[in-house]
């Protein structure tokens, strides 16, 4: 982290420091040299002063000793005394003067306190100094200090004829010497201080002057730099238009001019670049505009980007895609919005591990319906698909959303689906009609036409009367539609509904049912009768349409190969059969045998007639349980005696009920399994010795594992026994009473009581039942029975 310190500051401070340091150095040097020289001088003075003092002292002592020789010889005590005392008195430096004889007996002790010099006593002096002085044999000195000052004692022996007569001693104070030295020291100090003061003031002055000078200089130098810094700041912010005007006749001036050149270049370059980008964006926009799809992009957080194809506005019916939120563009409800963001998160997380189509399929919105004209309820269908967009480093950056107008396609799809449905209905219709004997169809159409006539007449009457009543308002004759009248119509409609249903004419039944509901409304006095009547008329019109359709199909199927039929009372046929039977035929010729056979077969019926009731039953049960089935009969035209299956009627009923109920799965389940409409098939084959009736379905099949579990549950089998069952034995389990694998006991079957009764019945007829079943594929029940007593040869 560097803190900004301007060049100016640096210049100034460095210079100041330089000056300060220089002066400090100078100061120290001078101070030190001064001190040294002063000390040297003082020492020199000290020495010379001392030398002077010593010389004085020595001279004094020596002179006095010589002068006193004569006096000492004469014992001229009175001459010595004034000499010494006056010497002491005259010179302030001399502290004391002492003359003592050989025996150290003082003759004179002169001092400031005792100017006369008369000694206190005449005892020999015993102090150490005196002892020393008494021991000298030539001029000597000794130095010592008292409380006051230093004293140098000069002692000289007074010698006469090589004999020491006495000693003259002068003590000279070093005080004045010291004083001089002291003075000299003070002078020296004063000089030194003066010098220091001068230096300091000079230093401060220099600093002051230096500061101003440098400041000015630094500012002058750095000001262009500051200007340059400002210019470059502006440029660094992207503004290349400000010219750098800076003139300076130094390196900074050069820098500024180069900078200016650089700015110009960058400006031109970026302008060019901007032009290039604008050009490219224009190209991209052109492309987007020309794409016939609605394209826009979103970021991974769901925000909508600026770029989109103009067609997107039209397709999504917004003014400006970029200003919309994704939830508005794709018409999310709250749940879808939450899911979308969940999906975005999933995409971000897993787009590298999952294949894109699988991921894209999970987006909550794959198509939207837009209402274009609310009153006309016109819809537009838009399909939505998603693509990935990567950035330069190869990371997923955005999602491209494609919106395509699929209205036409969708409408075509609807049309096709409607047509397909119509086709299926037609096929169903045709199959149904084909499976029904011509007489029955004729009966149905006759009955239905008659009833439709009644109904239309009644309804028209009611409509007329009601409108007449309205026209003569307010003087109208009230017209009531009685419950009885409604009942009459209801009965006809209901019969048509039932018949239509049992023959499999779904549309007819459907319209009849709706008519019934409308008729019920008529009973309610609150309802507007004319409205209801009109609706009923419309429905009847539709019913007519269905009936006409049925007629067409009938023509298609029966029309071409219309057989010539005559009606003969059955009694007469039966009498012919009896007579022919009574002709004993042992020696009958071929023709007679054939005649007898033909007569026998007069009352035979086609298989489809014989099993008609089972077909009806199957369809009835299917309708009740909401299963989708077709019931087919193999070789339905084949003629058989009427009692071919009459003895196993109960069995067939039960097996067919089972097939629809347990066999055929619910439509949703069948769809999940990829199965279409359920198929139930019945077949009869006859040989010389037996009849074989088969009922097959393509439903769920028998779950033997579950059957075994139930047996174990009900303690019919032990687990060990269960594991060793053969396929045949497994089949037989189904006949055990109380075992039903039906998970819910429906009112149709499922109590587990049926199959054992069937088995019992079959056995009592000397027949057998075989079951084959494959889980998920279907089941097949094969009944094998002996022939009946009638003659079967065809």
């Amino acid at each position, binding site marked *: 982290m560097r803190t900004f310190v301007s060049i100016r500051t640096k210049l100034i401070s460095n210079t100041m420091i330089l000056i300060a340091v220089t002066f400090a150095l100078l100061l120290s040097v001078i101070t030190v040299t001064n001190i040294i020289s002063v000390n040297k001088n003082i020492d020199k003075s000290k020495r010379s002063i001392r030398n002077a003092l010593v010389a004085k002292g020595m001279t004094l002592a020596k002179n006095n000793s010589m002068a006193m020789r004569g006096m000492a010889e004469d014992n001229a005590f009175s001459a010595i005394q004034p000499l010494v005392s006056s010497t002491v008195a005259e010179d302030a430096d001399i502290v004391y003067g002492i003359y003592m004889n050989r025996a150290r007996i003082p003759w004179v002790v002169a001092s400031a306190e005792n100017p006369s010099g008369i000694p206190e006593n005449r005892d020999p002096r015993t102090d150490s100094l005196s002892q020393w002085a008494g021991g000298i044999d030539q001029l000597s000195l000794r130095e010592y200090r008292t409380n006051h000052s230093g004293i140098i004692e000069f002692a000289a022996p007074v010698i006469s004829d090589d004999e020491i007569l006495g000693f003259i001693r002068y003590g000279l104070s070093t005080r004045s010497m010291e004083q001089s030295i002291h003075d000299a020291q003070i002078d020296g100090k004063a000089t030194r201080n003066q010098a220091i003061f001068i230096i300091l003031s000079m230093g401060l002055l220099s600093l002051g002057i230096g500061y101003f000078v440098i400041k000015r200089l630094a500012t002058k130098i750095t000001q262009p730099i500051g200007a340059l810094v400002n210019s470059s700041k502006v440029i660094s912010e992207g503004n290349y238009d400000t010219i750098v005007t800076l003139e300076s006749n130094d390196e900074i001036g050069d820098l500024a001019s180069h900078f200016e050149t650089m700015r110009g270049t960058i400006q031109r370059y970026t302008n060019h670049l901007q032009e290039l980008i604008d050009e490219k964006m224009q190209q991209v926009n052109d492309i987007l505009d020309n794409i016939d799809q609605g394209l826009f992009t979103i970021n991974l957080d769901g925000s909508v980007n600026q770029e989109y194809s103009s067609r997107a506005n039209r397709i999504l019916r917004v003014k400006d895609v970029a200003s919309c939120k994704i939830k508005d563009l794709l018409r999310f409800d709250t749940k879808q919005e939450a*899911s979308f963001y969940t999906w975005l998160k999933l995409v971000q997380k897993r787009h590298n591990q999952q294949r894109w189509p699988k991921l894209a399929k999970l987006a909550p919105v794959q198509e939207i319906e837009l209402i274009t004209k609310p009153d006309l309820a016109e819809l537009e269908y838009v399909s939505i698909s998603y693509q990935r967009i990567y950035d330069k480093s190869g990371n997923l950056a955005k999602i491209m959303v494609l919106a395509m107008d699929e209205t036409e396609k969708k409408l075509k799809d609807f049309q096709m689906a409607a047509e397909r449905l119509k086709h299926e209905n037609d096929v169903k219709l045709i199959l149904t009609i084909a499976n029904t004997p011509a007489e029955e169809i004729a009966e149905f159409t006759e009955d239905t036409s008659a009833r439709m006539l009644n109904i239309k007449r009644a309804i028209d009457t009611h409509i007329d009367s009601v409108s007449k009543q309205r026209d003569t308002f307010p003087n109208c004759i009230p017209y009531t539609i009685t419950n009885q009248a409604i009942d009459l119509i209801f009965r006809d409609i209901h019969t048509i509904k039932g018949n239509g249903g049992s023959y499999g004419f779904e549309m007819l039944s459907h319209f009849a049912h709706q008519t019934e509901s409308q008729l019920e409304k008529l009973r309610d006095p609150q309802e507007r009768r004319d409205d209801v009547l009109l609706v009923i008329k419309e429905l009847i019109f539709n019913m007519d349409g269905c009936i006409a359709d049925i007629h067409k199909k009938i023509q298609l199927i029966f029309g071409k190969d219309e057989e010539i039929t005559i009606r003969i009372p059955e009694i007469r046929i039966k009498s012919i059969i009896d007579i022919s039977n009574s002709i004993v035929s042992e020696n009958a010729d071929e023709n007679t045998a054939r005649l007898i056979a033909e007569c026998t077969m007069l009352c035979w019926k086609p298989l489809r007639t014989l099993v008609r009731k089972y077909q009806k039953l199957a369809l009835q049960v299917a309708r009740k349980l909401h299963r989708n089935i077709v019931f087919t009969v193999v070789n339905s035209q084949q003629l058989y005696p009427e009692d071919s299956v009459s003895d196993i009627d109960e069995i067939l009923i039960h097996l067919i009920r089972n097939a629809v109920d347990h066999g055929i799965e619910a439509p949703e389940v069948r769809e999940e*399994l990829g199965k279409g409409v359920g198929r139930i098939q019945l077949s009869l084959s006859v040989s010389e010795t037996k009849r074989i009736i088969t009922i097959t379905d393509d439903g769920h099949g028998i779950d033997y594992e579950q059957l075994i579990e139930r047996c174990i549950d009900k303690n019919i089998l032990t687990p060990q026994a269960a594991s060793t069952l053969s396929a045949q034995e497994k089949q037989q389990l189904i006949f055990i009473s109380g075992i039903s694998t039906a998970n819910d006991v429906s009112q149709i079957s499922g109590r587990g009581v049926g199959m054992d009764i069937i088995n019992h019945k079959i056995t009592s007829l000397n027949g057998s039942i075989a079951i084959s079943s494959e889980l998920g594929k279907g089941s097949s029940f094969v009944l094998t029975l002996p022939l009946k007593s009638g003659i079967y040869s065809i």
Partner: protein
Amino acid sequence: MDKSVVIVDDSKFLIKQIVDFFQNKLGFTVLATGTDGNDAVALYKKHRPSLITLDITMPNKDGATALTDIISEFPDANIVMISAVRGDAMLECMSAGAKGYVEKPLKFSDSHFIDDFEETINDIFS
């Protein structure tokens, strides 16, 4: 790579089809099968297969719940959803950690379907 699988679906018929596909087409070892969410969790814990397939609509405990149960205990579990359920539920399952999904009805006779199924499984192990 350990190619073991546990298959869970409430339709025994479909279980057979799926088992057949994994064994014969993809070369997996089918360790166990189950019919509801509880089976799914228990069988996963017991066998720790390299892959488990889950139907969504199942009795007792559905596939989505079983998925979160298994993932919470075994965050690295490889789970594939096989279901007829469309829309949000499948998205939720994928967000919750399922590694892939296959849509019912299972059209084993359609080559596109087979390719998609195979790819879905192979992607998990690549």
